[in-house]
């Protein structure tokens, strides 16, 4: 089917909307000026001006765009706009984001004299704030953390306005904002303030793989009581809390309620969720990539511990070399540059779907040892495809709904948008009993779909 539909003119933005977008643009300009200005005091002024303008502009625009309209699903012109429909704006955004990640990861290290490369002016612009929070000067990771948290808070507020008709979405969005601000920004900062190890209580092995590496564990244990607790916390979360919570609620308790990567995807990535590839071919790539990556990080961890336990380099430097390359290829390139840089082109959950070993682990638990499923309401599906469209994980949800089948998929992060967007009230996230979890509705007959099971 290739109907030739002329691209219609988009409704013009109101003057107020244009003004709010102009504020965001002015903020980006101020950021460039902060990078270019040679005067240290002015750099800081430009940076704070930039953050203020971007924040105010984003909040004002979100309120005008969503807060002003009747509560409900607002997807008008989603695929027609260049910014959210892979147009020129999207490609430029993607290039800028990708470029930022490349500079951040490989060209912004401290050269030993407090110079952080191209991002130097921005890093030092945050020195005062960093001293106040962490009692130490800023570095490139503090700059990144600040931007990241701000993105989740601003775009989270946008999501709160956009989805305010759904209490599930309100509470869930509030949750990712809370965990990012509290557990991934303030607490690690305060730990440093009190001369404790910087530790993120919301990231666990195998996503934060080094937390269970022998080097990290021994380092923490030597630190004393707080470090011991961190090791204990990490191990309990990875091996006990994760299976138990996933059994009751599915992987969503983590991926779309707590995780910082998920938090960014659900807030800053929300305008791009429809871009995920829904094809069977993409599903095959998902399976080919995500499980081997999980296997790889398990193998590296085991190798490091074997070396540690045998107190030898029996297996040579293989573990360390593996960890180094894993950190480069998976930790930096995949999760950062591709994972976030390609948001406007590939959608917001590329990393979570194709790469994250924690998602793979949670997914196996969700598929085989969980009560969670998305139920289909009898025969009410009209195959409109809105559910598949909003699925950031690329699940072709309607394939299940139109057969009356429940959706039990390893990749589902339980964001609930399929249920929110369904115009006929067909889908519902449920933690029912495990018996009959795969049972289809008797009100519609299953067809002989041959897709992966």
């Amino acid at each position, binding site marked *: 089917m290739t109907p030739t539909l002329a691209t219609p003119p988009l409704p013009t933005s109101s003057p107020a909307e244009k003004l709010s977008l102009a504020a965001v643009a002015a903020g980006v300009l101020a950021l460039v000026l902060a990078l270019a200005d040679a005067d240290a005091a002015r750099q800081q002024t430009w940076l704070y001006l930039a953050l203020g303008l971007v924040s105010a502009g984003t909040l004002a625009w979100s309120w005008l765009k969503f807060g002003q309209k009747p509560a409900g699903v607002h997807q008008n012109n*989603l695929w027609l706009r260049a910014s959210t429909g892979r147009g020129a704006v999207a490609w430029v955004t993607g290039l800028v984001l990708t470029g930022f990640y490349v500079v951040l990861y490989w060209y912004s290290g401290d050269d030993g004299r407090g110079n952080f490369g191209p991002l130097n002016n921005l890093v030092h612009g945050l020195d005062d704030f960093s001293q106040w929070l962490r009692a130490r000067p800023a570095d490139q990771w503090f700059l990144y953390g600040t931007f990241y948290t701000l993105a989740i808070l601003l775009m989270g507020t946008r999501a709160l306005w956009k989805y305010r008709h759904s209490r599930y979405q309100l509470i869930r969005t509030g949750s990712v904002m809370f965990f990012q601000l509290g557990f991934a920004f303030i607490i690690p900062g305060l730990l440093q303030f009190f001369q404790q190890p910087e530790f993120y209580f919301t990231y666990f092995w195998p996503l934060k793989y080094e937390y269970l590496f022998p080097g990290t564990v021994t380092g923490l244990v030597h630190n004393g009581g707080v470090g011991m607790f961190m090791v204990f916390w990490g191990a309990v979360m990875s091996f006990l809390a994760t299976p138990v919570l996933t059994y009751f609620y599915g992987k969503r308790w983590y991926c779309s309620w707590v995780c910082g990567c998920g938090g960014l995807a659900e807030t800053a990535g929300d305008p791009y969720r429809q871009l995920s590839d829904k094809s069977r071919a993409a599903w095959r790539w998902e399976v080919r990539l995500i499980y081997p990556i999980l296997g790889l990080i398990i193998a590296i961890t085991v190798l490091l511990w074997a070396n540690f336990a045998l107190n030898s380099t029996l297996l040579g430097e293989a573990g360390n070399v593996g960890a180094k390359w894993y950190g480069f290829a998976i930790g930096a390139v995949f999760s950062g540059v591709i994972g976030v840089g390609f948001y406007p082109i590939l959608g917001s959950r590329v990393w979570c779907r194709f790469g994250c070993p924690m998602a793979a682990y949670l997914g196996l638990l969700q598929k085989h040892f969980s009560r969670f499923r998305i139920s289909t309401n009898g025969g009410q599906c009209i195959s409109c495809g809105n559910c598949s469209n909003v699925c950031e994980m690329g699940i072709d949800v309607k394939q299940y709904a139109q057969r009356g089948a429940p959706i039990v998929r390893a990749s589902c992060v339980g964001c609930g948008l399929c249920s929110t967007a369904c115009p006929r009230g067909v889908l519902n996230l449920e933690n029912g009993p495990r018996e009959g979890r795969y049972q289809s509705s008797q009100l519609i007959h299953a067809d002989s779909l041959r897709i992966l099971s």
Partner: protein
Amino acid sequence: MRLVIIGNGITGVTCAVAVRRLNPEARITLVSAESAHHYSRTALMYVYMGHLRPQDIKPYEDWFWAENRLELVHASATLLNTEEQLLVLDNGTTLAYDQLLLATGSASKLYGWPGQHLAGVQGLYNLPDLQAMTRDTHGISRGVVVGGGLIGVELAEMLHSRGIETLVLVREARYWAGVLPPEEAQLVDRQFQENHVTVRYRTELREILGDTQGRVRAVVTTAGEEIACQWVGLATGVAPNLGLALTSNVETDRGILVDEYLRTNVPNVFAAGDCAQFRRPASGEVPIEQLWYTGRMQGETVAHTICGHPTPYRRGVWFNSAKFFNLEYQTYGQAPAGPTPGLTSFYWEHPSARGALRIYFRSEAPHAVVGFNAMGLRLRQAVCEHWIQQATAVATVMAQLGKANFDPEFFPQHENTIVKAFNQQFPQQPVVLKHRKGLFNFTKR
């Protein structure tokens, strides 16, 4: 067996898929001129509004057809010869069949209004309609929609999404008066108001006026009012598409006449979906059903008959759903629009006017429940159907109401206030709520 299906809408495709399951050897061909692949007609509006792309409204990926050995012919069948069991296509080829299913759907119904053929006047049923609407509403300032049914509100929502001023003409005194009771219609009217769509009730179209280029420039209503506009959407219903049937000896009336097995008067020729008309509809049912759901059920049923297991069409407990701007609607069972002898209804409405529940039950004891209307609430179909089939007493249904709650987690649960309202309206049948939904959906079934 060689099965040819004319039409690749939900009815034809459901039949094809079901026959493939029942008979792995059958040769199955689907013929359609409208589109190369099956698409969801109900989703056309979302393409116009930019929520989805055209390729997103295909229920199956393109590999599905070849992998399930369903042959697709992108052409129009122009002639049916039932003597020789042969079809002539407009691409110059012929197609022989052992069994033939006519699933030719509908066409928009026009009532002979003066000016109805002007440019910028149309219905919305198929892809060409969508293309025409996209083209003809490009940059216009005002559109008029004629018809107070489901397509009428869809068209209004579509125009509204482009910032086009919209005016709807509704013949009856309220929206969808043949289906919705006044209270529910009032909630839909609230949606029109909130979205700044003007509705003229008790107003019909008299005439459409054109300009010198043959384009619509205004409509004249039965009240004599002339309303300037650049586009007119006619949402006054659809009629069975009989084009192909009329070239043969297949009997037709308003639709293609079928028995309860969906067989026409000609051996090996079947008809199902929008285009079929039952010679003897079951009591309380209409002879022509033009819904996505009934199309799907008829397609499934006729597949069994075609495969040699004659199966009468039994619709089961009625259900339907829709969405009016931001207001969802679901209905189950018998839910008449007005007072009906022997039936009583209980109605509860949320103060926000964004939620309502109506339960219909028999007036005589034990007051068996017969139907539901839900607005802005989601009800579990299997539970409602079970209650209706079992003729469950309304007091039992009210006490168990939480079982039917299909709203997402953390949504406000109204069972307590609903039961309170019921006890006020029907003090002779006091109810104590026994089953709430509770948090986290730990459903017991």
